[in-house]
């Protein structure tokens, strides 16, 4: 089951989706059992920004049919805080379980992103960087990652700052995700990951006043509800690019992971399902291993 991903040797193809597992909090909650049954082959951090962010006011969660709408708002200590407070603890824990650290970053401009990458390049505990391009462009309000031209330009501009693998986490809120993936590839991405959450909203339930429910106004939909959308987007992307693809969106079981691998993903990330079962990642990995290696009848070519 071991997988080569952009030169990282992983023990299996299952990682966590950014922002859906806090290793340090899990350490507090689960202690030794977290290490004994570590769920992921590599660990992806929450999105880190240059400046600290408090995140959105509560409520931050809305449970929807077979899904979850979140409006967390990317709270984080900022790059300096992350390096000072989290990185040492993260990397010592990850060293124990032999899983590399992938740091997810987001910036509003190419300059911000370049700075984030530069700093990550200097930290040897960071094995790779995932760049979240679901950040609204300050001028247009649209996600940087939604416009292929803009995306390619940004990736090209920042690429040289990072010698480590650069994964571009695409936005699913676009007319043509395959073209965005191709743009990331053209700009120099080593891999792409998808899908991020679908733009979504909820109004307050009966008994509450009828404003948007989420403190952030709108949110993003994740979980099983979006699985068929994720499969379509991953298939479209994998059939277009030749760099590795990290597939995610509603994965709950080895079967769902296998579907993403079948359409061309190299790794699969587990997100919302970890909220229901913190060992979900491990169960998925074990399920894949139990099913045995598949003859590579990849659908990638046929799509």
């Amino acid at each position, binding site marked *: 089951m071991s997988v080569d991903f952009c030169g990282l040797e992983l023990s299996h193809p299952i990682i966590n989706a950014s*922002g*859906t*597992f*806090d290793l*340090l*909090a*899990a350490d*507090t*909650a*689960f*202690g*030794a*059992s*977290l290490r*004994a*049954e570590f*769920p992921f082959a590599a660990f992806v951090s*929450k999105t880190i920004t240059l400046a600290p962010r*408090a*995140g959105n*006011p*509560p*409520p*931050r*969660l809305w*449970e*929807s*049919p*077979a*899904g*979850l709408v*979140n409006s*967390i708002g990317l*709270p984080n200590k900022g790059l300096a805080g992350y390096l000072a407070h989290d990185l040492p603890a993260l990397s010592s824990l990850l060293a124990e379980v032999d899983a590399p650290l992938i740091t997810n970053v987001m910036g509003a401009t190419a300059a911000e992103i370049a700075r984030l990458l530069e700093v990550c390049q200097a930290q040897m505990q960071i094995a790779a960087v995932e760049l979240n391009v679901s950040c609204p462009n300050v001028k247009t309000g649209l996600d940087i990652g939604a416009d292929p031209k803009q995306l390619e330009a940004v990736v090209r501009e920042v690429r040289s700052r990072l010698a480590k693998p650069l994964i571009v986490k695409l936005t699913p809120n676009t007319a043509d995700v395959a073209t965005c993936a191709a743009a990331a590839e053209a700009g120099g991405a080593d891999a792409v990951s998808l899908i991020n959450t679908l733009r979504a909203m909820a109004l307050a339930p009966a008994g509450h006043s009828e404003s948007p429910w989420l403190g952030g106004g709108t949110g993003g939909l994740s*979980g*099983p509800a979006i699985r068929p959308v994720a499969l379509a987007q991953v298939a479209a992307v994998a059939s277009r690019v030749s760099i590795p693809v990290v597939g995610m969106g509603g994965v709950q079981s080895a079967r769902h992971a296998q579907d993403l691998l079948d359409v061309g993903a190299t790794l699969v990330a587990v997100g*919302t399902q*970890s*909220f*229901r*079962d*913190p*060992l979900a990642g491990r169960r998925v990995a074990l399920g894949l291993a139990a099913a045995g290696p598949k003859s590579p009848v990849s659908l990638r070519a046929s799509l």
Partner: protein
Amino acid sequence: MRPQAPIARRALTVVGMQELGAYRVLRLADPDGPAPAPGQFSMLAAVQRWGGGEDERPHVPRAFSIARWQEGEDGMEAHYLLEDVGPGTQRLCELRAGEEVWVLGPLGQGFTPPDEGRRALLVGGGVGIAPLAILQDLLLQHSGTPATSTGAEGRRDLAAPTGVALLGFRDGAHAEGAALLQNVRIATDDGAVGHHGLVTDLLARELDEDPEAVVYACGPAPMLEAVRAMCAEREVPARLALESGMACGFGACFGCVVPTKDGYLRVCVEGPVIDAARLAHVDAHAGAPA
């Protein structure tokens, strides 16, 4: 160090489901689970058919205070007090003995005991009385003094060394939940049982007589806010068990935050019990179902 949960959720068998007025008491056999600290909670989900209820929910598990931890017929049992307020609690309430529940827990930061010699005043509202039961069990156990077991209201029993519980309910059916604790004084909104009014009226009287008490409170946000304000004014230490909409219960989703004086705090890892002094006010979303 706080008791920690195994990362592997456990499929536990329902050994009992009793009505208690407007509530239900769910008993789960938990032979291998770690003993919880009072104030800790678990994330629960029915093993079968967690989903497919109103609005095709629930999907994520639900948080419940561990209300009691005691020896049962086959090892330890955890008790939970449930109030049916939506699809998740409804599904749990319909479980029968022999069915299974996924349990992740014990989770979170529980209550810390009062300093030596100070009396604990437990203040609960509605289903928020649940964590006070296990806290009272522990306090009584430590003090070695069984509380007077009558729940009759009005009889003021300052002699009770510890664990006196002031409980507020909507009406008589809800007030039956008080049977979960001993040595209780009750207030009801409709006056059906005990004091006709707010549980904080009872609290004021108690604090008048014993300003050295330490307050332990859990309940709806307006109640918690009243407790916080009263204790802040009187400079009485108060530990509040907060609630919040949760998806994970172990710090993964950042969904359960409440505002504190120094920023947002995740109720599931830094709480649910926090020192009232850390709050400027209790957020409207940070309490138990009203």
